[in-house]
């Protein structure tokens, strides 16, 4: 099963990476932002051809974003989590679109949901949200509940219907009695 990838990675990349085995067949490699693309390219050449997806975590207390690439090999059956940390004030990351083209919508999503910028990605327009002007919604300092209460509740919008549906039900009963 194992292709000894961690040992080889350590030999190849030395102190630029930090790796460990988390669970059975699930490994973790941490590296610096500018080294991620080198590492991903190397992993792909080592037959880690399947990029499952990429995700982002907002570590607000440490003022950092963590990007995670999930890479899997159909031969060694190992799943590798490639992680890197970005500064939360001006987060940007090199795009991996030249290694795995299908990473494009994931980067687009992370840009929309966290505000992480991917220079080189050809389309970072809004993917899911309509007319979004607030903080990117998956950031920890965006409070979804407040947003929902402030926008969607009838109270918040000052909406009192100019008609009364309960009235209709009562009159219906009377009307039907009259009809009989």
């Amino acid at each position, binding site marked *: 099963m194992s292709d000894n990838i961690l040992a080889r990675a350590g030999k190849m990349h030395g102190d630029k990476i930090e790796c460990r085995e*988390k*669970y059975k*067949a*699930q490994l973790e490699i941490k590296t610096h932002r500018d080294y991620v693309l080198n590492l991903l390219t190397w992993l*792909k050449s080592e037959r880690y*051809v*399947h*990029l*499952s*997806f990429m*995700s*982002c*975590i*907002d570590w607000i207390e440490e003022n950092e974003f963590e990007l*995670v690439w*999930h890479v899997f090999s*159909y031969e060694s*059956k190992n*799943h590798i*989590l490639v992680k890197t940390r970005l500064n939360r004030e001006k987060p940007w990351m090199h795009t991996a679109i030249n290694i*795995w*083209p*299908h990473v*494009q*919508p*994931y980067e687009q999503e992370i840009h929309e*949901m966290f505000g992480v910028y991917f220079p080189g990605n*050809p*389309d970072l327009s*809004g*993917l*899911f*949200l*309509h007319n979004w002007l607030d903080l990117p*919604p*998956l950031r*920890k300092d*965006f409070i*979804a*509940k407040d947003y929902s209460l402030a926008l969607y509740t009838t109270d918040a919008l000052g909406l009192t219907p100019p008609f009364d549906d309960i009235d209709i039900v009562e009159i219906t009963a009377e009307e039907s009695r009259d009809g009989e």
Partner: protein
Amino acid sequence: MYLPDGYTTLDKISENDDYAVYDLFFGPNHPGMHGNFGYVLDMVGTEILRVRPNAGQLHRGFEKAMENKLWAQNLSLIPRVCVPDPDPNEVAYCQAVEAILGVEIPRRARYIRSIVLEMSRLGSFLMGMGGVGGALGHYSTMYLMMIDRDLILDLFEALTGGRVYHIYNIPGGVRRDIPDGWTDKLLELCDRLESKLPEWDRLLYENPVVQDRLGGLGYISAEEAMSSGITGPSLRACGVKADVRIDTPYAAYDEIEINSKLSEGGDALARAVQVRLDFEEAVNIIRRLVKQLPDGDYKLDLGNISKLRVPKGDAYSKVEASKGEFGYYVVSDGGLKPYRVSVRGPSMPAGMYLCHKHLRGMKIDDVAVWMASFAICPPDIDR
């Protein structure tokens, strides 16, 4: 506006004539669209020049909502990520939580989970096969297959109390044990489904019109499929022996024999046939699981589950759903609520990336069929 390599934005037709290219909205309100999703097609005549996916109509901020709910409360949110095939979500989430907790669930619980997963797979496959029929204008298959899907839902109801969303898996096992006599009904259903297969073969897969329509449509090579994130039946249809159940066994799949047959070809016909082969195998897997079903506890005692605290850590857990690899990346900061839950849906690569390559040059006739053959399920794109 994103285009894959080698494609330019301006085509030579549109340079000369402003009116040659027109927009056609394929979805979200379109009978050929499965779910609430849309492609804006730039068309020349009936041929597609380029495509702009229009996602987000089903976006409901799951990943944010999960951060604000307890570990156990999230169980009711999670099945809603993929509506036709909800159980893989529950299992993937529970497995990730169990991995961070470092617990091993009882053997019986693992078997029950596998049974539930396979049943969910059967239901979803029936919907998918019916969807291929519906996209081809062959409504009888859809109508007939939906009866059998409903019988599966009846069994789910008897087991879990829910028809569509079951909320049956919890961290540590399953919510309750299998009721008496339920497995007999399940085996009866397996026999019924298997006896239906020849009819469906005659109706759909051996139908010359269907073969003419699907053959050669949306071809993808094995190498390209692997490196563009295609998983599940669509990848197996390219002849790649890739199955999360075998590659990284979970639940009871390490003790169960899985003889997946591969259909080769990599086109829409191969993908449709692969779903049918997987369907047949899933019926057999259920039989094996029921036969080997051990006695014992059906869940691990984790105390009051609503006060569950998960230690600091993160884990990725994946499950072979009916459409491909469903994965949950769960991060915990040691609190009562998850710090971050990130969902990998199987439809994103095909629905958002491959569409640029495949739909270009395709006729409008084939868009719905192409979508059905890749089993694109918008809820897990949008989440």
